[in-house]
């Protein structure tokens, strides 16, 4: 099945190909191809995910306790998400139905540290140049260096917010990138008094700066609603995890989805049954799969995840400043669902504030200093772990044999859930801005602005493997053949 502008009606030589390769200021490897006719009318737009690494397959045969440390190498930007989603799946397998308070809170602290650092990285380091300078501003300035020159305070705060989140991760996971703190059934360390004091010292500053960040993006929306409300906007379903009481919880809860009008599609769903809800479609032109709600089919059943979905899917946010901002967000949209692609940035900053406030609350909890770290119970052969990663709902599903070796792994990473949405966004922007125009670098950056709003982690999304119809030989520096292409 195909969507508008997904595939040109007439294939052939009369169409000109324009490529954005690589898509920059995103994490991972992607490119966009656009096919235009002689009048620059757009016939086809595709976001291709071009890399693949094979994790789902080579995890098989490994002992299950290695998995939380292995799978975080899917992604160095949100390693904690994979570390924890895998741990949660393995909690089920080792029969740890209820973690100790220390373990649960250490993991939560780690996760909200991750949300804080990843959202700060995305907003300040990657997207702020577009938002502050304009989508077609000069290439040489359109980066964090340009922001540091023109708005040194904003750049510095972004750097320090990210640093703080990374330090939360280091103190909970042992290391900033690819830590080892979470294990099946619990964690392997608690927080020392010195670590806690160090993190508490700066947390109020982080909350204040997060509030300022929400203000920046809110003002951008209010100053230019014609742009922010309409750029790459299209209706879709939304999915995310919420706490059983409907409030926002990024670590644990139940699945909820709403349709484009805001009506509940499903709610209170136990994520162990995720595979009865979702089917993944493969398209020949991307290594990233296209998931959809099975009951609605691929045309109607695709959905969005991540900040825009979560902030609108929940009934409330359990921290005061973030809840205040959520209400402002809902009021701005007039009580209807906001479908604007650039609304992701606003929702993301609300979540960053929520993360900073949650970190503060957790740091006041004495359970973090406990010594009861791991539990186990009746051993099972299958488990699903789900977490709301910075970019959206992340599914890890494993089967483990009696010999403790993994026999099956299935991952649906956050960005994969947004695959159809990102393609819809770039096609919408192509229709709005490129159709019939002379293509310039600035116009092409509009396409990337739409992709960046989803904060895609194309690194995560490339865990699969593909095969090509072309031929290549790899020679070493001395001209000897090292490898040849895969042949079917």
């Amino acid at each position, binding site marked *: 099945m195909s969507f508008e502008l997904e595939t040109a009606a007439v294939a052939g030589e009369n169409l000109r190909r324009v490529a954005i390769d690589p898509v920059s200021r995103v994490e991972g490897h992607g490119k966009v191809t656009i096919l235009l006719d002689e009048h620059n009318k757009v016939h086809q737009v595709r976001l291709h995910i071009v890399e*693949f690494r094979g994790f789902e397959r080579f995890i098989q045969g490994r002992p299950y306790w290695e998995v939380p440390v292995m799978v975080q190498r899917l992604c160095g930007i949100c390693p904690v998400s994979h570390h924890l989603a895998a741990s949660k799946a393995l909690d089920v397998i080792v029969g740890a139905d209820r973690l100790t308070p220390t373990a649960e809170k250490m993991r939560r602290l780690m996760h909200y540290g991750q949300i804080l650092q990843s959202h700060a990285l995305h907003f300040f380091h990657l997207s702020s140049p577009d938002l502050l300078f304009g989508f077609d501003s000069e*290439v040489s300035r359109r980066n964090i260096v340009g922001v540091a020159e023109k708005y040194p305070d904003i750049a*510095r705060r972004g750097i320090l917010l990210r640093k703080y989140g990374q330090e939360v991760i280091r103190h909970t996971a042992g290391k900033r990138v690819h830590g080892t703190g979470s294990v099946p059934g619990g964690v392997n360390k608690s927080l020392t008094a010195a670590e806690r004091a160090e993190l508490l010292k700066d947390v109020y500053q982080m909350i204040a700066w997060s509030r300022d960040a929400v203000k920046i993006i809110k003002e951008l929306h209010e100053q230019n609603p014609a742009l922010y409300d309409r750029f790459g906007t299209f209706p879709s379903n939304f999915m995310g995890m919420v706490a059983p009481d409907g409030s926002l919880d990024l670590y644990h809860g139940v699945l909820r989805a709403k349709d484009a009008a805001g009506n509940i599609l499903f709610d209170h769903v136990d994520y162990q049954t995720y595979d009865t809800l979702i089917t993944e479609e493969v398209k020949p032109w991307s*290594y990233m799969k296209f998931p959809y709600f099975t009951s609605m089919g691929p045309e109607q059943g695709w959905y969005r995840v991540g900040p825009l979905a979560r902030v609108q899917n929940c009934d409330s946010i359990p921290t005061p400043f973030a809840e205040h901002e959520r209400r402002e967000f809902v009021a701005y949209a007039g009580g209807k669902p906001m479908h604007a692609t650039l609304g992701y940035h606003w929702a993301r900053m609300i979540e960053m504030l929520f993360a900073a406030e949650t970190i503060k609350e957790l740091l006041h909890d004495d359970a973090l200093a406990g010594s009861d770290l791991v539990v186990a119970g009746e051993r099972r052969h299958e488990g699903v772990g789900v977490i709301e990663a910075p970019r959206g709902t992340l599914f890890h599903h494993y089967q483990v044999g009696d010999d403790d070796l993994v026999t099956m792994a299935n991952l649906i990473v956050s960005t994969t859930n947004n695959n159809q949405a990102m393609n819809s966004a770039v096609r919408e922007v192509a229709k709005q801005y490129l159709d019939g125009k002379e293509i310039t670098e600035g116009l092409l950056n509009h396409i990337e602005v739409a992709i960046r709003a989803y904060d895609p982690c194309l690194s995560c999304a490339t865990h699969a*493997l593909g095969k*090509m*119809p*072309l031929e290549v030989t790899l020679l070493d*520096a001395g001209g000897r053949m090292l490898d040849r292409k*895969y042949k079917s």
Partner: protein
Amino acid sequence: MSSETLDAGMTPRKLKVATVSLAGCFGCHMSFLDIDERILPLLERVEFDRSPITDIKHCGPCDIGLIEGGVCNAENVHVLREFRANCKVLIALGACAVNGGLPAQRNHLELADILQQVYRTGHGLAEGSQIPNDPELPLPLNQVHAVHEVVRIDYFLPGCPPSGDAIWAFLTQLIKGRAPTLGHGLLQYD
């Protein structure tokens, strides 16, 4: 934290630095950003060329090139050669660039079997799913390779990832024109 600073004895011209992630996870780039606020004085001494943080899509003539990730497809080979041709000093940054890293775990498996499993027989796939085969997708290699197997590499910085402090110590020495050496605690092989 490394005691190196960038205050004294600097070259007057800004050095050009290009960075790329091939078959990596971007963790080494994250670790680079883990130099935190030290990036501000660094920006006084260097200018970024192609990098995931800029919109420059092809590497131009550069003083320093940092390569994260091993080589898993034809595009990686092409980009790596472009970096070698343009960068005076080329550095393999992190475990995957140094020896293939975790993605090289696929080297003992048949690529055809992996493809089959991921796209045709895997869990939860739509009926009739086929292996992606569009010419826009770069060709995968049978094996994941370390970058030194493809081009000459001047320095190897191990670790998964190397810490922000290690990257800082390495770069500051290089920028000062010294042969970088990393002391105890900065070299790691996790």
